[in-house]
């Protein structure tokens, strides 16, 4: 670990980390652009980088992207990233009251506290978690992937059924090409260009960048109101730490815990922390009217969830959210196998990610505190130039993958699919995670079945696998149970006099 910190303080790693954080903050602060989009678009550029440097750059972008979303959420009530939705509830009313700088200052400090607390969990929990994961067999991995997909489908926006369809569709679209177990092509419809399967990057860039650009073009007439930001109030005092310390700590733990659960992202973490802060508050009625604890809870939790989510990513290769799914893609592109063996085979990458996460949070804090007044101006960059430039980056970034236009057409196709899914209110998260996890799930299921001579009963001999399976079943049945309860209450209510 110490060696990773020492490596990080060389010129190029620190440069990449700072660049990543800066780009992340800029992109996160512009409504309509997200950290996932930035990371997906930057992946082709990391081919030529050392794997540790590449991960350092991407981790910087991730931390910056999640934190940057705070600015537009507070000043314009437009969450820069989905993770900042809860920040709008109190951040924007504070701006309306003339306390925009104060809200930004609290949000920035809360973000760094959330990041630092979750780093402690990440650094302490990851090595033992990786040791535990080493004992996992194919059934554990298969049921864990199943659990991740079910959890993500049930907690994404929209209905559970649509989330499940999205997950299945993502898994199916990852299957064309040569079947890794038997060496025969499948689902190629006689189209030889599909023999190698659909590559991850065109799918990611299409689903996240192109579909988002199409949505932004539809809303291009949306003019943003102008809010000036000064420096007064950006720095918070020690007394503020006393007032908000407990909230920060509680929200950090909630955020980290939610991040640890496979498949659940920063927006859910912020929502849970916000609800908890409101429930334990003596003045819950003030939440939503520009109440400081609301901003603190949301921003602490969304940043803390990043650290939590990085843990299952590097220890088990299971993404905590869409952005982590893209990071798994980055590891695969660099010929690294995400999972418990990463700590043994490539410790410099595993510990490098942990070290980069801590330093990225500190850089983010310094950068946001020092430059928030300038960053706030970036919200107003003309969309015409921005969107057309991103479209060109999408095309050449995808072309650069393998110097073939087939990938570019795939990207455009997935752009349309992503746009269509979002139009029908089908969440993209399960779709992409299904695509990423499909090969792992199939491979593990096949290995498990081979070992048990085709019997599914073997899953019940493995306690962890049973636990994961039970969690999946509960997650699936819980919304149905809630619906039943609601239905019952509605039926009983009219009968009550």
């Amino acid at each position, binding site marked *: 670990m110490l060696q990773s910190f020492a490596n990080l303080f060389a010129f190029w790693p620190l440069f990449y980390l700072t660049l990543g954080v800066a780009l992340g903050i800029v992109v996160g602060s512009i409504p309509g652009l997200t950290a996932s989009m930035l990371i997906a678009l930057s992946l082709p550029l990391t081919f030529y980088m050392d794997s540790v440097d590449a991960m350092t750059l991407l981790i910087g972008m991730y931390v910056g992207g999640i934190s940057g979303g705070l600015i537009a959420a507070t000043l314009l009530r437009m969450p820069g990233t989905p993770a900042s939705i809860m920040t709008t509830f109190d951040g924007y009313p504070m701006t309306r009251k003339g306390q925009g700088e104060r809200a930004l200052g609290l949000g920035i400090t809360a973000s760094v506290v959330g990041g630092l607390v979750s780093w402690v969990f990440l650094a302490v929990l990851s090595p033992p978690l990786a040791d535990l994961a080493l004992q996992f067999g194919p059934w554990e991995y298969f049921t864990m992937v199943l659990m991740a997909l079910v959890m993500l489908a049930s907690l994404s926006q929209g209905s559970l059924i649509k989330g499940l369809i999205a997950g299945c569709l993502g898994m199916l679209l990852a299957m064309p090409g040569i079947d890794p177990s038997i060496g025969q092509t499948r*689902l190629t419809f006689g189209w030889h260009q599909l023999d190698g399967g659909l590559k991850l990057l065109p799918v990611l860039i299409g689903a996240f960048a192109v579909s988002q650009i199409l949505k932004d*073009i539809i809303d291009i007439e949306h003019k943003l109101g102008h809010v000036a930001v000064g420096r007064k109030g950006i720095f918070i005092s020690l007394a503020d730490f006393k007032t908000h310390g407990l909230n920060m700590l509680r929200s950090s733990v909630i955020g980290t815990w939610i991040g640890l659960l496979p498949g659940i992202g920063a927006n859910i973490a912020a929502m849970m922390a916000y609800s908890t802060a409101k429930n334990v508050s003596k003045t819950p009625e003030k939440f939503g009217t520009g109440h400081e604890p609301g901003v603190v809870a949301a921003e602490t939790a969304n940043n803390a969830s990043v650290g939590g989510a990085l843990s299952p990513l590097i220890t088990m290769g299971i993404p905590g959210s869409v952005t982590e799914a893209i990071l798994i893609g980055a590891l695969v592109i660099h010929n690294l196998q995400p999972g418990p063996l990463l700590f043994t085979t490539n410790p410099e990458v595993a510990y490098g990610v942990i070290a980069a996460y801590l330093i990225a949070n500190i850089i983010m804090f310094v950068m946001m505190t020092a430059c928030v007044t300038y960053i706030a101006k970036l919200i107003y960059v003309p969309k015409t130039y921005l969107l057309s430039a991103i479209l060109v980056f999408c095309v050449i970034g995808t072309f650069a993958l393998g110097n073939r236009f087939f990938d570019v057409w795939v990207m455009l196709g997935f752009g349309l699919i992503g746009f269509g899914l979002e139009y029908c209110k089908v969440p993209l998260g399960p779709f992409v995670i299904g695509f990423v996890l499909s090969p792992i799930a199939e491979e593990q299921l096949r290995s498990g079945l081979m070992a048990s001579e085709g019997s599914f009963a073997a899953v019940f001999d493995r306690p962890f696998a049973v636990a994961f399976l039970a969690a999946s079943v509960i997650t699936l049945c819980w919304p149905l149970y809630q619906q039943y309860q609601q239905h019952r209450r509605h039926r009983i209510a009219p009968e009550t006099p």
Partner: protein
Amino acid sequence: MSGSSKQGKADIVFALVIILVSTVIYWQTLVQPPPRWSEPLGSAAPRALAIIMAVLALLVLIRALRSNMRTGSNPADTASSTGNTATFIRRPWLAAFSFVLVCAYVAAMDQKLLGFIPATIGFLLLIGLLLNRGNWRQLPWLAGFACVLTLACHLIFTKVFYIDLP
């Protein structure tokens, strides 16, 4: 059209498309040759996924049809859900034209009609004008932006990353 009935129609189309995709995939798994040696999973994974997806899509379809019928039979629902207060005009056609333009840009390079530099400059100029809704006064700015961005990309990709652009 009300928001809920629009969503209902989108759900019906979505469900039908998913059922079609599932059917095609299921059919494709049937025509696939059997594995050359004994293997426990075979085509079961895509087949199972196609069936699950079709069943779920059927549920979405039934739900959407029922909700559409309810909305149709109760005009009050339609009236109450029409209070959409968008403060700006949405431009779906602009997105459609932009997408067509990107496809034309890619096709021009794919078919070797144009190289990267002329194609990208042309694309940036056209999409810039399209997004500015034909505001010709923006043309000098757009031209400058297009040239700088194209040349910078060309330089970075060919001289730094050693990638041959079309």
